[in-house]
């Protein structure tokens, strides 16, 4: 909507059409005089009305009808005369319209929008609707056949009486046909009067007799009153005047007419409905006001005032004046702003007001989530690098292969030529070991050749540990490296008491301790495990390293669980790292200052109060520290630091009744097997992480097998508090008998861990016996003999029994002054060493070198036997301590470590009889196996076997020879005896002869001596007598015959 205000100057803003009608209209009107050009149009029709002949053209404006735009307007204007322009043109009309100042009349004309009623086309078949057809529902309401009183209630019309007719009366007067369809009936006066006359007072018409007679028309009309219209209970009414009767008749006719019209209407409507939609005639309905006209009124724009009517005139002759020259102009000049007469400018008067509208648009990118996933079955590879191997078909290959000799491309020829080269190479590889690393071997030789430094050839001490309270002057009876932690060693300390001393104090508990030494702190043990009795053998569970069990002097077995301590230890080591670093300086060269610093660090109070034993121990140490004086910083600091050492008490203890009755001498965990109560052994699956069983041996001749899952033994319903009541019993017991039929005083156990399920093991005894036994209980035997064989290996107790880590069937035994190698199944030792100077106290195999053994003796020396070097004496002998060495242990290596790694980190823990634990570093040549050492050791063992076999094969001959020798000896002895007897008899005779005062002859003296010297003495005597005789002869003392008799 809106209109055009096309004044001379186009709107300041190009293309901007005024939107506000009022202002635009006003602007147009105000400008009319100035620019002689105007308008507001009402459609194109008024413009067309502009009369061409008239000097001015009329334009109707001010209506709110749609307006053509600026382009539409000039067309009708041009259609009119060129002289009169009453049109909206834009800037272009400066040429035309500007020159001819013609006026445009503005007039107002209201456009009447009359909608002509379109008569519906008459239907073809149907009776046409009457000319004056008005739909029934639009007709005025039906006239009523009754009147209404003031209150609007129906009352009978004037001249009408309502009355009640009985059914008999209705029949009598012939009105029985009346009903809803026919409401009116005619009755003659005569009938009515007859009825009155015939029935008298009971006639329903009796009351109306006079009026009936007076009725001015014939016959009378009677109507049915429906629904008790008048409220008087009557059902009929009768019109007694002509006026009322006519009224009734007209009402009836009208009703009939309308009914017919309705019918017709319905028929037309039905016909209309039957037509297709497009052919239906739409009735134009008269407009009905629903209030929309108000809206239109509101929205429409109306002139506020009368349109101004003005007339602009120009004389005819003034058109086409000579002064005006019209010429063609180029468009670019024409539209050049410098040439234009009518330049756009901004007129503040007509500055357009603009309505502001806040609109905002925001583009939101549609969000979509998608994902893809490759299957992963085929390794990803870019499509352009996927390749397929070239190939040629079999026939082509065969052709190549079959190409005859001495033709180009013959494979046979080619092979012939290159074959020899290949064979040479193949043979070379066969005769030399191509995988041997010559450089590595070279390195070994350089080391082993003695050219290395001292450190590389000598066993040197890396660290030593002792504790004034717990281990000083005690015997380190067992050493174990912690399987899961590096640089931590556990040692069991026992009193240096003889058996008699122990027996003397038997029955009293003697708390003993196992100390855990960490390499980081050589002064304070990391942890102290307390045991009610002295522990002589203990071992960590190899698979659950927090569990350890130990065998006590009284035969009981105790178990510690360190899992609760691990956190505490972790905190402690983390917090005390500064202190331990100070301590790791070995405390020897650290002066008082570092000692003090250390003490400071360590003085932080422990989170939990230590046990009573610790506090007493602490005071004892403090006393010792005071005695030794302040010059010993380690003593002082250890006294300070003792309070920090956590003491762990044992968790479980075996029942005395079911334990060993003598000292437990060895304890071994049995990983990977399950032992039943009946002595059956089942192997757990590969890689099983369970290790629940261990075996102990004691001097009472029993090997007991224990299940560590003590909690299983708890009866149902018992709580953890009842652990003390728990009876921990062995699940299997093996009784071993010694050679002389007594209980075997067992000392050491050696299982074959690779084949535990076979049940064969070795045991050593205090009497030097070596027993080969089977711990699996045979079926059906109540007291089976478990021992398969028993040999007298040593004269003293077997102090070491260990399988070679490289040869499963070779066992090292050590006792008294000798060590031996036994092979499983043989009855004689494979090898026996010579007797040593000192009593051996400990022995073990090297974990990395198959041919090397370590033995410790009572003088404090460590012997290293390299069997490939020499077997009659140790290769190296180092004196480590002045006191006897009591135990040896190598640090364990994870199974995953390579041989080189193992060789690089080999440490030997040595415990002596004064409670000192020494960690020895072994020289490289003892750590690292020489090339092919296992093989060489294998051949060495074979050689020993051959030697044994050889000795065995010569046994019969040698036995014969020995017998012979013995017989000869016996004969000789018998002869000697006989001779001696004869001499004795002779001597007795001589003695009897010389009985009277004669001094005892030399022969008599001889008799007092032994059998053998007798002959010698006799000879010497004869010599002496000869000399005497000669001497006498020289002196002339003897008669010449005597002299000659004795002379030569």
């Amino acid at each position, binding site marked *: 909507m809106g209109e055009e205000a096309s004044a001379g100057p186009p709107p300041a803003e190009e293309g901007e059409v005024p939107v506000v009608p009022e202002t635009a209209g006003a602007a147009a009107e105000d400008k009319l005089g100035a620019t002689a050009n105007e308008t507001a149009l009402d459609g194109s029709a008024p413009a067309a009305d502009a009369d061409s002949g008239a000097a001015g053209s009329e334009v109707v404006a001010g209506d709110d009808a749609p307006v053509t735009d600026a382009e539409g307007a000039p067309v009708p204007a041009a259609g009119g005369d060129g002289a009169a322009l009453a049109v909206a043109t834009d800037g272009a009309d400066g040429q035309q319209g500007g020159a001819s100042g013609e006026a445009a009349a503005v007039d107002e004309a209201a456009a009447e929008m009359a909608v002509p009623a379109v008569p519906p086309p008459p239907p073809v078949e149907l009776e046409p609707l009457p000319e004056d057809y008005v739909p029934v529902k639009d007709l005025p309401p039906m006239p009523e056949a009754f009147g209404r009183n003031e209150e609007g209630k129906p009352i009978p019309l004037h001249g009408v009486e309502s009355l009640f007719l009985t059914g008999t009366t209705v029949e009598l007067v012939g009105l029985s046909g009346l009903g809803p369809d026919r409401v009116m009936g005619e009755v003659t006066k005569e009938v009515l009067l007859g009825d009155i006359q015939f029935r008298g007072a009971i006639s329903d018409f009796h009351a109306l007799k006079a009026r009936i007679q007076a009725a001015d028309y014939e016959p009378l009309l009677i109507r049915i009153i429906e629904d008790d219209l008048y409220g008087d209970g009557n059902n009929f009414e009768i019109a007694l005047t002509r006026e009322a009767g006519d009224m009734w008749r007209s009402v009836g006719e009208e009703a009939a007419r309308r009914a017919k019209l309705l019918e017709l209407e319905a028929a037309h409507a039905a016909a209309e409905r039957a037509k297709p939609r497009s052919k239906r005639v739409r009735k134009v309905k008269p407009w009905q006001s629903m209030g929309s006209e108000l809206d239109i009124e509101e929205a429409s724009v109306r002139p506020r005032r009368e349109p101004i009517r003005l007339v602009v005139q120009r004389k005819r002759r003034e058109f086409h004046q000579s002064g005006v020259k019209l010429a063609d102009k180029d468009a670019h000049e024409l539209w050049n702003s410098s040439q234009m007469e009518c330049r756009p400018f901004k007129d503040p008067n007509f500055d357009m007001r603009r309505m502001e509208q806040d609109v905002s648009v925001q583009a939101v990118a549609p969000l979509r989530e998608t994902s893809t996933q490759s299957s992963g079955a085929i390794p990803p590879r870019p499509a352009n690098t996927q390749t397929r*191997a*070239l*190939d*040629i078909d079999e026939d082509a*290959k*065969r052709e*190549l*292969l*079959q*190409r*005859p*000799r001495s033709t*180009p*491309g*013959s*494979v*046979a020829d*080619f*092979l*012939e*030529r*290159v*074959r020899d*080269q*290949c*064979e040479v*190479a*193949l*043979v070379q*590889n*066969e005769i030399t*070991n*191509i*995988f041997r690393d010559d450089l590595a071997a070279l390195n070994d030789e350089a080391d082993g050749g003695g050219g290395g430094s001292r450190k590389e050839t000598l066993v040197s001490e890396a660290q030593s540990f002792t504790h004034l309270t717990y281990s000083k002057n005690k015997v380190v009876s067992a050493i174990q490296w912690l399987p899961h932690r590096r640089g931590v060693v556990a040692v069991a300390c026992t009193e240096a008491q003889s058996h008699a001393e122990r027996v003397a104090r038997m029955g009293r508990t003697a708390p003993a301790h196992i100390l855990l030494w960490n390499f980081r702190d050589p002064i304070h043990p990391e942890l102290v495990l307390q045991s009610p009795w002295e522990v002589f053998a203990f071992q960590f569970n190899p698979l659950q390293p927090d569990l350890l069990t130990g065998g006590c002097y009284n035969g009981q077995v105790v178990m510690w669980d360190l899992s609760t301590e691990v956190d505490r230890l972790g905190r402690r080591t983390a917090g005390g790292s500064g202190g331990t670093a100070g301590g790791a300086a070995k405390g020897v060269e650290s002066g008082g200052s570092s000692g003090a610093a250390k003490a400071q660090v360590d003085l932080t109070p422990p989170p939990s109060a230590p046990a009573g034993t610790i506090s007493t121990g602490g005071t004892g140490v403090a006393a010792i520290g005071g005695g030794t004086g302040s010059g010993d910083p380690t003593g002082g600091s250890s006294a300070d630091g003792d309070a920090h050492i956590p003491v762990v008490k044992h968790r479980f203890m075996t029942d005395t009744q079911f334990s060993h009755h003598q000292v437990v001498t060895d304890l071994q965990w049995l990983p990977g097997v399950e032992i039943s109560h009946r002595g059956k052994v089942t192997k757990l699956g590969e890689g099983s992480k369970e290790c629940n069983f261990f075996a102990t041996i004691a001097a009472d001749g029993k090997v007991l097998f224990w299940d560590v899952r003590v909690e299983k033994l708890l009866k149902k319903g018992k709580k953890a508090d009842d652990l003390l009541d728990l009876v921990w019993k062995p699940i299997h017991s093996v009784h071993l008998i010694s050679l002389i039929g007594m209980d075997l005083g067992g000392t050491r156990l050696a299982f074959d861990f690779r084949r535990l399920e076979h049940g064969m093991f070795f045991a050593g005894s205090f009497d030097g016996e070596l027993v080969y036994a089977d711990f699996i209980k045979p079926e059906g035997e109540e007291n089976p003999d478990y021992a398969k064989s028993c040999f007298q290996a040593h004269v003293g107790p077997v102090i070491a029994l260990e399988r070679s880590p490289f040869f499963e069937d070779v066992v090292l035994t050590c006792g008294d002054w000798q060590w031996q190698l036994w092979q499983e199944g043989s009855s004689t030792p494979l090898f026996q060493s010579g007797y040593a100077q000192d009593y051996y106290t400990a022995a073990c195999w090297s974990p990395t070198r198959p041919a090397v053994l370590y033995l410790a003796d009572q003088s404090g020396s460590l012997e290293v036997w390299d069997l490939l070097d020499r077997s009659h004496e140790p290769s190296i002998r180092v004196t480590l301590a002045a006191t006897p060495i009591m135990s040896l242990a190598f640090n364990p290596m994870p199974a995953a470590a390579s041989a080189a790694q193992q060789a690089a980190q080999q440490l030997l823990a040595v415990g002596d009889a004064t409670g000192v634990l020494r960690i020895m570093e072994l020289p490289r040549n003892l750590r690292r196996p020489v090339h092919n050492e296992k093989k060489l050791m294998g051949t060495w063992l074979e050689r020993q076997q051959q030697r044994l076999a050889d000795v065995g094969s010569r046994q019969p001959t040698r036995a014969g020879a020995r017998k012979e020798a013995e017989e000869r000896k016996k004969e000789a002895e018998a002869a000697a005896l006989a001779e001696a007897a004869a001499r004795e008899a002779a001597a007795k005779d001589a003695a009897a002869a010389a009985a009277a005062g004669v001094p005892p002859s030399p022969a008599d003296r001889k008799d007092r001596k032994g059998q053998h010297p007798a002959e010698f003495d006799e000879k010497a005597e004869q010599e002496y007598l000869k000399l005497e005789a000669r001497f006498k002869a020289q002196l002339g003392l003897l008669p010449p015959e005597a002299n000659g008799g004795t002379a030569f």
Partner: protein
Amino acid sequence: MVDVAAVDETFKRLQSHKGVLGIIVINADGIAIRTTFDNDLTVQYAALVSHFTVKARSAVKKLDGDNDLKFLRIRSKKHEIMIAPEFEKSHEYYLVVVQDPSRET
């Protein structure tokens, strides 16, 4: 046919040596003409060895234009690969022998 027999005989003879794991004859295109390995391994060896040999030969030839590669032994941790190439213009073959002398045949 006689010549196929000769080829067979050579193969047999080479295989009789200790620890020989397999023998392949490869043509100039790196296609195995005859092999004792299974297919996958053959394809691998053929592709890799022929590339390697060409490289090795070019190295030798670049050092001295008159020189040529005669034999190539690659000793690995597990075995040794011997390559006997022949670079005739019309026919170019490589004989590849893989040997692990520590293994008993």
